[in-house]
């Protein structure tokens, strides 16, 4: 909640320096630089097409950046497969469309990566998975398949699946945008609980209430650049840029 103190003490875990990314002639990111610290919860907001999701996706190389440098927990993110494997073990991701493995039961969705990547035994992976399902309130659904769950339940499973790898950082790419309104809160409740547990979170979101209440820091993207990098309180009270003011008036009245 107090950004100044959070930035003075803790260790930087993600350092992005002058990241550039283009899709054909469209420039998605223009020399974006930002440093994220351990334990910090950052909300990333902005109009659609502003580059906020692209930025998030470059952080675990679902999109390769064209220029600049990304360092995660001391490891440089590049074409080196060893580095990439190490980084993907540290960085979990939750997607807008959940992306659960539809041919696997809920329990198997959670145990797959710990067993294959971390070489955990089945018993240990299952015990851990059940603990995480308990945490997101879905332990009774362990033997069901994703299609049998509601959207909100699927997203909670997806969060538990990411947590099963013990990531240091969790990236959320519009985690509530594909949900029916009545299911948004159950997912936000899980994320709120996570934010208080001390894990580093980067959340691309349209949920301004959540950003205001939970985030330590707020980044406003527009046309591929970071326009504002401040606290939620500051951002909502008096945004510096006209674009941010326009955006806020849109989400408030829209």
């Amino acid at each position, binding site marked *: 909640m107090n950004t100044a103190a959070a930035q003075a003490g803790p260790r930087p875990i993600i350092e992005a320096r002058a990241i550039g990314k283009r899709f054909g002639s469209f420039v998605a990111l223009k020399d974006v630089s930002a440093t994220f610290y351990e334990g910090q919860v950052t909300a990333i907001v902005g109009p659609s097409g502003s580059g906020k999701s692209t930025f998030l996706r470059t952080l675990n190389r679902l999109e390769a950046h064209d220029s600049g440098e990304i360092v995660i927990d001391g490891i440089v993110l590049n074409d080196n497969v060893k580095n990439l494997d190490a980084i993907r073990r540290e960085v979990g991701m939750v*997607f807008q469309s959940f992306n659960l493995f539809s041919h696997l039961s809920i329990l198997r969705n959670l145990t797959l990566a710990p067993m294959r990547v971390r070489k955990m035994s089945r018993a240990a992976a299952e015990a851990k998975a059940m603990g995480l399902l308990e945490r997101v309130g879905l332990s009774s659904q362990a033997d069901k398949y994703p299609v049998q769950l509601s959207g909100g339940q699927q997203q909670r499973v997806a969060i538990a699946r990411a947590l099963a790898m013990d990531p240091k950082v969790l990236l959320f790419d519009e985690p509530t945008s594909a949900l029916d309104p009545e299911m948004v809160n159950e997912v936000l409740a899980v994320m709120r609980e996570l934010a208080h547990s001390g894990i580093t979170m980067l959340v691309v979101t349209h949920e301004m209430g959540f950003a205001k209440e939970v985030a330590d820091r707020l980044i406003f993207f527009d046309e591929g650049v970071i326009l504002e990098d401040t606290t939620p309180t500051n951002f909502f009270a008096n945004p510096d840029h006209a674009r941010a003011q326009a955006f806020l008036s849109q989400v408030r009245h829209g």
Partner: protein
Amino acid sequence: MNWTRKNPGWTMFAAMIGLLVFLWGMAIPLSSMPAPVGPAAQQFADGARITVWLTLIAGSVGVVIGVLAGLGKVSKFWPLRAFCEAYVWLIRGTPLLLQILFVWLAAPEIMPEGIILSDFACAAIALSLNIGAYNTECVRAGILAVPHGQVEAAHALGLSPLQTFMAVVLPQSMRVALPALANNLASLVKDSSLAYAISVVELTMVGYRVQAQSYQPIPVFLTIGAIYLILTTAFTTLTAALEAKLDVGQKR
């Protein structure tokens, strides 16, 4: 078919046992039939066994080829993609009979000295390559049907490309591809009859010989037809059960 859906494991087991019992035991009831079928019962049984062997070998190899070439066709590496496309184009654009004759007549000239392929091996190779090409298209469609988001999720969880393919893409693509693969297998049971052209004594060849000796084509070919029907029924029951077994986590 409802029972098949509910008990896929048992259905597969029953179909396999049924196929084995039929292959080993069919000479017994056939031998009690009147001439010309009765006296040739053992030939029919042997022919059916060759047909089933050809189907099983070419069917299995064909699935492996189909998966590899199907993967090749969606590869980002263009020479591999071009190679797989050329393979499918070549096989689908020429008659199976020509392919069988080509392997049989051309292989001895291409193969190094000392390696001699039997007629059966030539037929198995040609049939494998043929069904492999048709399987390639089915597998490719199956791979493309797996939502890309699941691949991204697997990568984000740290799974390697190979692990992602084996654990996430392949099982789901096979579920999509299976009905089409089963269709190809049913065709293969019958297409294996073309091996008669290179003197493999499979079921159709047996029928041709027996009717040539007895001058009674009608009972002989009816028997052959019945045996083919029983074989294709066993294979389609097997694949339908496999389909039901893989059909989990799907919207209905």
